[in-house]
């Protein structure tokens, strides 16, 4: 009982963290009908800065790390990403009023990773002084790309079987190339390489790191406003997307937490790493995933997958998922 109260108190306490506070603030502003707007260029700059900073820090610390430790979590990330899409294909897609290719696209987004969710969780783990290996953010592409590939392949298989213009057979190579060219992954990988191969300490300490939290708060504000504004789109599609959007982040995250725990037992994957793995599994891409899917599965209805991911998936993953996994981690690993 005490454990439950403790858990609950810790869970609720997370809401005062700036990341969550700004997210909810943004939703409240938009709900109120405020005309406050964050210009597109600033939003893109925030995404760029966040991922550069995460990448550079990761790259700098990988220099001293044991890369073999990364193998099992990376493999788990790939498996989780693919599993999420397959599970979605055989659950969401079979519900009434749900078009299969829309469901596959939605599952694809939920298998992929959200940069903003990752950044917010890293900040919250820092606030709680929970340590994690610096290469854990680098697991991002290992989950993101396979999930999108599986989703696109499944969708094309389905469409081809329906003989309704199965897309010109998109090669897997071009999907990978397209994902890697996306703004989020490009920044992350560039940051990783720069941190690993060069000496960016001066710009990291002078520019990227100090601005990180501030820009994250602006990004969270924007995502909150965006989430509210896209709710209208979700109204035009089946209610199941909203349900999936609320349930999937938590189910996926908890599954990943379990698998991460196994990695912890087998190879000493840090508790912080387990929590982050759960967070990225529960996150749903809303920056780079949607354009990739829009180009590769054009017949899927964007209102369904973007609505589910941006309006419901990301807020739930950030506001409910992150505190949940942190509290769970504290309970399980005992700190």
């Amino acid at each position, binding site marked *: 009982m005490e454990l439950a109260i403790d858990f609950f108190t810790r869970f609720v306490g997370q809401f005062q963290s700036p990341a969550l506070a700004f997210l909810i603030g943004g939703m409240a502003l*938009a709900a109120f009908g405020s005309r406050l*707007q*964050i*210009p*597109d260029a600033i*939003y*893109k700059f925030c995404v760029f800065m966040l991922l550069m900073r995460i990448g550079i820090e990761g790259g700098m610390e990988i220099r001293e790390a044991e890369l073999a430790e990364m193998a099992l979590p990376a493999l788990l990330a790939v498996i989780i990403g693919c599993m999420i899409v397959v599970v979605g294909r055989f659950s969401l897609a079979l519900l009434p009023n749900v078009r299969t290719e829309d469901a596959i696209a939605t599952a694809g987004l939920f298998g992929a990773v959200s940069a903003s969710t990752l950044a917010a969780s890293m900040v919250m783990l820092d606030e709680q002084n929970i340590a994690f290996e610096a290469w854990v953010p680098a697991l991002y592409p290992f989950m993101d790309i396979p999930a999108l590939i599986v989703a696109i392949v499944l969708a094309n298989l389905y469409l081809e079987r329906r003989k309704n*213009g199965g897309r010109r057979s998109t090669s897997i190579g071009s999907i990978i190339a397209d994902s890697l060219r996306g703004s989020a992954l490009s920044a992350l990988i560039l940051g990783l390489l720069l941190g690993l191969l060069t000496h960016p300490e001066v710009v990291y300490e002078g520019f990227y790191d100090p601005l990180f939290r501030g820009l994250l708060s602006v990004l969270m504000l*924007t*995502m909150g*406003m*965006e989430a509210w*504004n*896209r709710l209208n*789109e979700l109204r*035009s599609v089946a209610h199941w997307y909203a349900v999936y959007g609320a349930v999937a982040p938590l189910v996926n995250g908890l599954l990943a937490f379990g698998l991460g725990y196994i990695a912890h037992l087998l190879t000493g994957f840090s508790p912080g790493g387990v929590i982050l793995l759960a967070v990225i599994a529960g996150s749903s891409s809303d*920056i780079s995933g*949607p*354009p990739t899917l*829009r*180009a590769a599965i*054009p*017949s899927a209805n*964007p*209102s369904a997958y*973007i609505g589910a991911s*941006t309006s419901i998936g990301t807020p739930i993953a950030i506001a409910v998922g992150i505190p949940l996994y942190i509290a769970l981690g504290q309970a399980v690993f005992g700190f």
Partner: protein
Amino acid sequence: MAHKASKVVIITEKLILDKVARVIETCGGKGYTVVAAGGKGGRGVHSTGRAAVVDEFSNVKIEVITASRETANRIADEVAATFFNDYSGITYFEEVEILRPEKF
């Protein structure tokens, strides 16, 4: 000395601008002009590339001037067939008068 020409106007999503441009060129368009556009149609306001709240102009208006009406028709048909099932867009034609006909 003004000459007669045809113009195809395509209003569609910015997301597919590059692909539409390629189709225009393969169908015989010698060039095109792009203008930022916003608005709403049967499918509602569509913007998938970025946060809805930060970009009102998520569409583009592409104008292609062609010397012959056949080329204009060809461009319009090809674009409509390739893209308008999956993406939002409209097309219309205008008759225009131009100078420097060798450019079209």
